[in-house]
């Protein structure tokens, strides 16, 4: 099992329940460049510590928001490619359907792969609804643009015989010839995140790593089964290796239970504020198909986007959920090293095996000292046991 340390690089000084929105409309005069400077360098230090402790590294990007200072994952990845020594560098991901120039994405990712000597894990995402407006992108046709950009990027990164041209519905290029080509040949590992079984089938067909975020056991198993269906249909093999699956959860550890829970509770402010955005930006027309939007409008709980469902079917409002709600939903692991180990084992057994645990071990209001202590404890007490255990189960087995 690979264990990734993830932070969104939050700017929590600007958070407040009284603010109607932390995204898009929050004036950037609130962003103090000195504070941002300290935060960027603090988070980079934490990723460097992760590298030393045996974690791999994950980052993402969002735009026009106090929830995530990583406006360009390429910038942070470039730094980490140079200052870290061994960790895999996962971007999850690049919103390729929102990018006007996929070849520029391919160039940046190839450079990062070469600078890091082949440590890039290249994740591609659809992007959240509220990143449509900052990207100046049209949500209509987003997924068909996404797949065309995907195909173009893969072709650009794997073509070694000189220039080729590309004629798509959305992108048209002459003389594509990537310098440098990626370090990892023929292609760095490709990842795609999803929350829908339909997309999971498509990702399985391509054999990429599929990541899902904070869905809990039931939803995650649905996605993994759908992936397996696509994977097997495309002839990749009768069994799916668990390294094709990744799951993101929050994690706080300490030497005593109360402290571990306190840390995770501070991280969970990430989720509580996640949907704090002026409502129209949550629903750009076209982000969901007309049919899906119609189904959602007729559902008894149309605000499902901000709501979690516990395994027992109890709805939980994200903005007010307790740590126990999050633990019950399988999206937070918290407590002592033993407790966290047991929670993770119960979860991974429940979903039939997991190759990549994406761990939000910094998030929300969790400070640097707590973050580093939590990571150290996890690395010394939990990680070795998880890695030893994982060696026994290599293939996905749905219960």
């Amino acid at each position, binding site marked *: 099992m690979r264990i990734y340390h993830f932070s969104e690089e939050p700017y929590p000084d600007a958070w407040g329940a009284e603010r109607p929105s932390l995204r898009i409309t929050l004036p950037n005069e609130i962003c103090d460049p000195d504070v941002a400077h300290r935060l960027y360098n603090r988070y980079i230090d934490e990723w460097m510590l992760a590298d030393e402790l045996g974690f791999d590294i994950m980052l993402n990007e969002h735009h026009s928001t106090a929830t995530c200072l990583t406006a360009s994952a390429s910038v942070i990845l470039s730094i980490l490619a140079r200052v870290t020594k061994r960790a895999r560098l996962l971007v999850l991901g690049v919103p390729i359907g929102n990018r006007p120039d996929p070849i520029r994405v391919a160039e940046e990712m190839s450079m990062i792969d070469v600078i890091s000597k082949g440590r890039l894990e290249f994740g591609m995402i659809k992007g959240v609804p509220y990143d449509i407006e900052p990207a100046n992108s049209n*949500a*209509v046709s987003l997924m068909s643009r996404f797949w065309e950009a995907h195909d173009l990027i893969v072709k650009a990164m794997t073509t070694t015989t000189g220039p080729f041209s590309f004629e798509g519905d959305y992108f048209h290029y002459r003389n594509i010839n990537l310098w440098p080509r990626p370090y990892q040949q023929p292609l760095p590992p490709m990842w795609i995140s999803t929350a829908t079984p339909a997309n999971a089938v498509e990702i399985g067909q391509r054999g990429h790593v599929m990541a899902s975020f904070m869905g809990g056991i039931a939803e995650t198993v649905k996605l993994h089964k759908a992936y397996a269906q696509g994977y097997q249909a495309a002839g990749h093999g009768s069994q799916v290796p668990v390294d094709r699956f990744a799951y993101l959860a929050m994690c706080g550890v300490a030497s005593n239970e109360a402290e571990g829970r306190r840390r995770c509770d501070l991280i969970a402010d990430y989720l509580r504020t996640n949907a704090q955005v*002026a409502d*129209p930006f949550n629903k750009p027309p*076209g982000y969901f198909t007309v049919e899906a939007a119609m189904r959602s*409008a007729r559902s008894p709980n149309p605000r499902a986007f901000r709501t979690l469902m516990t395994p027992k079917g109890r709805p939980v409002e994200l903005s007010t959920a307790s740590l126990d709600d999050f633990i019950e939903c399988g999206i937070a692991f918290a407590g002592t090293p033993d407790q966290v180990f047991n929670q993770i084992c119960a979860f991974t057994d429940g979903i039939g095996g997991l190759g990549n645990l994406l761990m939000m071990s910094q998030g929300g209001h969790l400070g640097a000292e707590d973050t580093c202590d939590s990571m150290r404890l996890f690395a010394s007490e939990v990680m070795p046991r998880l890695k030893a255990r994982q060696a026994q189960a290599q293939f996905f087995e749905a219960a």
Partner: protein
Amino acid sequence: MAPPITRHKVRDLDVRMMRAGAGAPLLFLHSAGGLPVWTPFFDKLAAQYDVIIPEHPGFGDTATPDWIRNIGDMAMYYLDFLDGLGIGKVHLVGHSLGGWTAAELATRNCTQILDLTLIAPAGLRVKGAPSGDNFIWSAEESVRNMFHNQKIAEAILAMTPSDEDNDRALANRFMAARLGWEPRWLNPALARWLHRISVPTQVIWGANDKLLPSVYADAWKAGVPDVRVEIIPECGHAVTADKGDACAATILSFLARS
């Protein structure tokens, strides 16, 4: 009274439309709000003309063909539509998105139209006077900002739409975004070709339009060769509802000019 829904086929597309009245044909292209409610405004037009209101592709219950992806496709589609209808030259009237479509059509080919009436058309911009953003307005703002007469807005807000109404509104919003999301409600190239409009044109605007400010009428006046502009006072973007009588009278007097 609203006429029954009829059908018309354009290539592989089955189009819903309303048709009423007798006289010279008048083709009305609706706004991004979808196939309009039949109001006294339309009765007034139908008293003198054969009024034809097709539902745009992708709107309401009319399917989205893969061959309509942008406003240029819409303009060419309506040229096909007119060919297929086989009723000779029409008075072409369009509101907002429909006005934009009508203008795009007219810059391409005026042989099938007698004249052009653009009611608060989208399609152009005036630098320094940004349009409102009906994609980002809340549901309530989107209704209120359409009307100067807030009583109309309140009546609409007081209604409980059916599931079918909601479905049609979602389809309308989706197709509107396909055509007008980016750049928002305009074609930067259109202003360069307005001189191609070779028929008499009338531009009608509500003085209090919160979506497309009435100053946009100046840009149309500057570009279209044979044009007259009428600004209706105390009137918002939904001109045909906000000031239906005045709008109908303005159209009828223009159509009767010759």
